[in-house]
């Protein structure tokens, strides 16, 4: 217990994040540890449902209320900067050179005008999940996942099952652009076929070329040519994989906890399949920044707190408690993390991961969903559907940049 006098003079700061049990619990533990080290600072955690989170923060901060330290999705940074919600982190406490040396390169997106505005505790990347039991049934080695895109299609064919009427009752691989596939297509497949999704400053769509067509042809071909999948099979790929009705599934590291809870699911995790020897991955993350509301001693306390929750110690706790990957290389590369059979493939994927600068994640994702539907449902050509998607995507970018 702290002496009452110390508490009375404590600086109080507010921390906001969205409600997700394991994250809130982990943060509670971090706060307790932080307060033990800094008895003169008190941190209040407030959480909101994910659906309302973004609007709540925007409304509260613009009204001069709201948190001192706030958690935000990396893709929202521009919006927050434009709204003047965030203030840059001080060079004294967060030297840019050190950040660039210690954190994974995707964190560079948090830099604007040479200054860092926010830092992550944890990051997420994509991996390939495979069902060992189904591999065995299909006569495949249950310990060898597909390593290339060609192998992936090949394995998936052997792993697809039909009923008497010819309907697919077990998919070789899940196809669900509305889930993680849109990221797999944009940042992984496009790059592997020799293209880039967007130009260097993320203002122009660049996947509408030969590489993009080939990448999309491969993706759509899994459904239309190889017939190894059904779009949104069993409503969601995650459900199908959990139920043992999908042999291969591509998802984020956050799916690990779901699959670990599933009984009788014997699965393995691997790095994403390569093509032409090219590796790529998609990473996304939540970052913590300091708002313009925090000034004076509150700002000092907020920086101290931010430093604490982005420390190596905090990251290991976050990995153990929440199952999200450490954003610092040193923690990620600890042998027990990097060689972990479950986390390892995701951590190794971070070395070559890209993150998309979304202008509107939901709308941009929808362009991929519709792009696939036009081919699968309406029989449109891959090239034409891709062109339409690129135009829609460009329109979303242009509209967001006009504001």
């Amino acid at each position, binding site marked *: 217990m702290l002496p009452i006098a110390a508490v009375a003079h404590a600086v109080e700061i507010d921390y906001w994040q969205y409600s997700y049990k394991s994250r809130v619990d982990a943060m509670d533990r971090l706060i307790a540890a932080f307060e033990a080290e800094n008895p003169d600072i008190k941190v209040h955690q407030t959480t909101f449902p994910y659906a309302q989170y973004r*609007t709540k923060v*925007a*409304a509260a901060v*613009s009204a001069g209320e709201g948190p001192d330290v706030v958690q935000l999705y990396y893709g929202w940074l521009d919006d927050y900067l434009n709204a003047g919600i965030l203030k840059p982190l001080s060079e004294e406490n967060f030297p840019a050179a050190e950040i660039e040396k210690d954190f994974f390169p995707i964190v560079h997106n948090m830099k604007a005008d040479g200054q860092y505005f926010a830092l992550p505790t944890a990051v997420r990347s994509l991996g390939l999940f495979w069902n060992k039991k189904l591999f065995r049934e299909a006569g495949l080695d249950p310990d060898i996942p597909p390593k290339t895109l060609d192998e992936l299609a090949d394995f998936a064919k052997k792993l697809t099952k039909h*009923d*008497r*009427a*010819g*309907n*697919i*009752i077990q998919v070789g691989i899940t196809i669900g652009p*509305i889930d993680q596939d849109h990221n797999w297509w944009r940042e992984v497949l496009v790059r592997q076929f020799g293209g880039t999704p967007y130009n260097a400053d993320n203002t122009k769509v660049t996947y509408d070329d030969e590489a993009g067509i080939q990448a999309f042809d491969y993706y759509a071909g899994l459904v239309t040519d190889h017939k190894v999948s*059904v*779009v*949104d*099979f*069993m*409503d969601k790929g995650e459900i199908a994989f959990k139920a043992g*009705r999908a042999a291969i599934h591509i998802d984020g590291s956050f799916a690990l906890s779901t699959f670990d809870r599933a009984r009788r699911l014997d699965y393995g995790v691997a790095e994403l399949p390569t093509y032409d020897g090219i590796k790529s991955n998609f990473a996304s993350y939540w970052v913590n920044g300091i708002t313009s509301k925090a000034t004076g001693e509150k700002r000092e306390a907020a920086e101290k707190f931010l430093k604490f929750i982005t420390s190596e110690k905090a990251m290991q706790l976050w990995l153990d408690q929440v199952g999200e990957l450490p954003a610092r290389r040193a923690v990620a590369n600890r042998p027990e993390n990097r060689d972990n059979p479950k986390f390892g493939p995701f951590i190794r994927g971070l070395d070559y991961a890209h993150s998309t600068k979304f202008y*509107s994640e*939901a*709308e941009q994702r*929808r362009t991929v*969903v*519709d792009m696939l*539907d*036009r081919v699968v*449902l*309406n029989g449109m050509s891959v090239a034409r559907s891709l062109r339409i998607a690129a135009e829609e995507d460009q329109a979303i970018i242009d509209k967001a940049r006009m504001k």
Partner: protein
Amino acid sequence: MSIDKKRAVTAWCFISVPIVYFILVRFYPTLDAFSISLTDWNIVGKKTYIGFDNFVRLWHDPVFWQVLGNTFEYLLLGVPISLILSFIVAHSLDQIRFGHGVLRACYFIPFLTTAVAMAWVWRWFYQPVPVGMINLALGQMGIKQLDFLRSTTEALPAVLAPAIWAGLGFQIVIFMAGLRAIPQSYYEAAKIDGASGFRILREITLPQLRPTIVFLTVISSIGFLRIFDQVYNMTQEGEGGPLNATRPLVLHIYKAAFERFEMGMAAAQTVVLFTILLIITIIQLRVLKNG
């Protein structure tokens, strides 16, 4: 003060509370929507007046026209099908004594069920194998499965079916009340004259049910024009897909308002919807009353 006056004052006292409520919660926002429709507003910032730009954008937006087409498809399929079905059921129920109460209750229960829960159950009915009940049955018989919600042509009727089913109970009860109100003496007279069952239906039952039919047509038209719950819950991520094939106007408004925070645009669409509802209701009242 006379007793009459006192009564009137008391009545006004009671009525004024809901009136205040309606003015604040219904009429004021409705009127406000008209002015918002002329602005660019993201719900937190300042409103900028932009004249009729939102309406011009709507006019040039192919998705908006598709959505409007869907909305009318819901209306033109939903109203006749639901009215015919509910009339047939009500008419048949009216003829039987045994099990009458139980049957009526069975038809009414869907009306009491939460639309969301029902939509999800139907969503799973429609799934491809190995989940969907309907396709599972087809598969057992060796018939190739139907795409239902994963088809640009079948999805809209598939979404409409539970909406019709849910509204049926209400329509049946109203039809039965209407049927009961027809004097028995008409039927007795017709029987003595030797009229056929079809003739009785055409010349006595249907004309006598005119007020009931007018009421149900207006109410169900408004209902189908405002369809939302079923589409939101039965389509992937509530998008009204695939490829906007099932998206109705109300869902389109919701997306504009609460996902993209384009309040001006959303208000402009509400104004369009309001106008359509108004015109259709006036036409229906005219045609069906004076016909």
